[in-house]
């Protein structure tokens, strides 16, 4: 349904050209959920915005690549044609629900507006549809809530309204950029349940972007791991979490605070800082922080290598070299603990 080929998005800033998305390829099939994870600044939002060309130009430029959605390259379309696709076939929800709703219009009117922009429908039918959508996303007493303004809703409820607006035209693809990051954990749990229900009901394909690997484990069929503007690993969710063959993903998984750890268990942190995207390191971008690093890694920039079953990883180590090195690292750690 969606296929992104070798996409580059550059941002022209005062300190130089930021290669925010640096040659990314992936696809999304109808009805599936793809999770995109990565640390802050790895390019997740710029990538998501580029799919609907919502990055402000300037600073953004698209020097290379294709975004094929239902046999059309979105990068070739005119703004007018894009507008037909946005909100209609592809919808997007953002991290901050307040800034995406207009504070001076009633919730009901904003919903009906969204419905009527893309479907010709009488006011009355649109109102009925709006009610049904609010009910679908679990707003209690939706009828009286249609006349409320956004500030009268809590953060969780506003996020539900945005999901309702996104669903108004039954899009084929829903892009959710950190939809729960600003919310409390119990409200996050409600929204994640809602997204699962919606997918079941409407069969919408979902791209969920988050830095929370727990959210991805819960929702995604497949996962893309981003690091400094690149996809460094891709695979079905189980392969990424249980059979990663990429040192960054491995390090990230080990560094997480986990509810299923022991009390006071020491975290295995990743050393160093994320790379500078204006002037990335030579060789592999992760090499300055990588516990597996070899001399070759400082020279060679690895490309994604196929590991079978749709699993791809950007690391020059072969699977057996990776496993061997992993055991060495774990042995050293164990000795360190015993001393």
């Amino acid at each position: 349904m969606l296929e992104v080929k070798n996409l580059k998005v550059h941002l022209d800033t005062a300190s130089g050209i930021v290669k925010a998305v640096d040659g990314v390829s992936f696809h999304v099939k109808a009805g599936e959920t793809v999770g995109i994870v990565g640390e802050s600044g790895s390019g997740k939002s710029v990538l998501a915005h580029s799919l609907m060309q919502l990055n402000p130009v300037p600073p953004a430029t698209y020097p290379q690549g294709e975004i094929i959605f239902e046999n059309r390259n979105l990068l070739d379309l005119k703004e007018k044609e894009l507008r037909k696709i946005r909100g209609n076939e592809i919808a997007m929800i953002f991290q901050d629900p307040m800034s995406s709703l207009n504070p001076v219009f009633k919730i009901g009117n904003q919903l009906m507006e969204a419905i009527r922009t893309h479907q010709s429908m009488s006011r009355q039918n649109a109102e009925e549809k709006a009610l049904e959508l609010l009910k679908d996303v679990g707003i209690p007493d939706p009828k009286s809530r249609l006349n409320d303004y956004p500030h009268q809703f809590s953060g969780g409820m506003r996020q539900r309204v945005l999901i309702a607006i996104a669903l108004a035209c039954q899009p084929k693809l829903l892009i959710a950029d950190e939809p729960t990051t600003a919310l409390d954990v119990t409200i996050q749990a409600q929204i994640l349940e809602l997204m699962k229900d919606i997918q079941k009901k409407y069969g919408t394909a979902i791209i969920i972007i988050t830095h929370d690997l727990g959210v991805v484990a819960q929702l995604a069929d497949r996962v893309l791991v981003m690091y400094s503007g690149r996809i460094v690993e891709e695979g079905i969710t189980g392969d990424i979490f249980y059979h990663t063959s990429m040192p960054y993903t491995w390090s990230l998984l080990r560094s997480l605070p986990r509810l299923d750890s022991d009390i006071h268990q020491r975290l295995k942190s990743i050393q160093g800082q994320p790379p500078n995207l204006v002037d990335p390191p030579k060789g592999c971008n992760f090499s300055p922080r990588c516990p597996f690093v070899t001399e070759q890694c400082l020279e060679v920039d690895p490309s994604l290598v196929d590991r079978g079953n749709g699993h791809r990883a950007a690391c020059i180590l072969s699977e057996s070299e990776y496993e061997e090195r992993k055991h060495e690292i774990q042995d050293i750690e164990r000795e360190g603990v015993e001393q």
Partner: protein
Amino acid sequence: MSEALLEVRDLEVYFPIKKGVLKKTTGNVKAVNGLNLSVNKGETLGIVGESGCGKSTLARTILGLEKPTSGDILIEGESILNYSAKQMHRLRRDVQMVFQDPFTSLNPRMKVSEIIAAPLKAYKMTDNIEQRVKELMDLVGLKPEYHDRLPHEFSGGQRQRIGIARAIALKPKLIVCDEPVSALDVSVQAQVINLFEDLQKELDLTYVFIAHDLSVIKHIADKVSVMYLGKMMERSDSESFYNHAQHPYTNALLSAIPLPDPGKEKTRERIVLKGELPSPANPPTGCVFHTRCPIARDYCKENTPQLERKGNEEHEVACFFPIEKGMVEAGSENLLR
């Protein structure tokens, strides 16, 4: 009891709601609404709760920055409420705070070395300030060559290290950490959590560690307290707490945290709470949690549960119908949607 470094007794902190031209007080935001806690020397008390439940207000009151409406705060057995100016000055040295947002809490025009030296100068702690700043930077893992840099030249994790260095500079007895890792990226969170643990061992520090995430608390706390709408729902030593959480709210919090493990996520039983957090200006009657509680009965609407021991010595819960061990795992009908 006398060994407690910090004790909070029946603490209430209300903020008046003023309306109209005459600014008449029409009600109160009950930010902290009857809290008790104590922390022993060398211990870490973890405090969790959702946005607006009063965590920061509690922290600020412990530091003497907010005046309690009623109740008491004792440091080493002595009430801080009637402190003289001189004693208050000493309190500002002995109790330090680390904030959530390391950026807004650092003066953007001061060099790192100046930020860390400021409290040393104010309290004339040492004759050799330069040497001490060097030591402190080393302790928190900041390279000596960063000495002259400004805060904006640092990443979030490094800025939090600066905040920690400043907090430990005066060898405080207690450090109150208000969500110190919530704003940090996943990959640097672990570094900072480990730093807190290392410094505690090295300097024999006592922490009150506030977070909204029970998985972070698990890696650092000896005792855990759960807050909801200005009240304490459950408190316990970590062992008993994570082994068997008794309050329905705690169980909901625990089951709301997504595990980075797709296999477990698929099979896991989950309590998804309905509805939203009520307002602390107008808290529900009876048990404040009853409006969202999956097992609330009529009784809970009218009666207010107190923190009480149920079984285990160190484990207290404010609930008339606490959850028995294994109930969530077994997917007990009335608990799960």
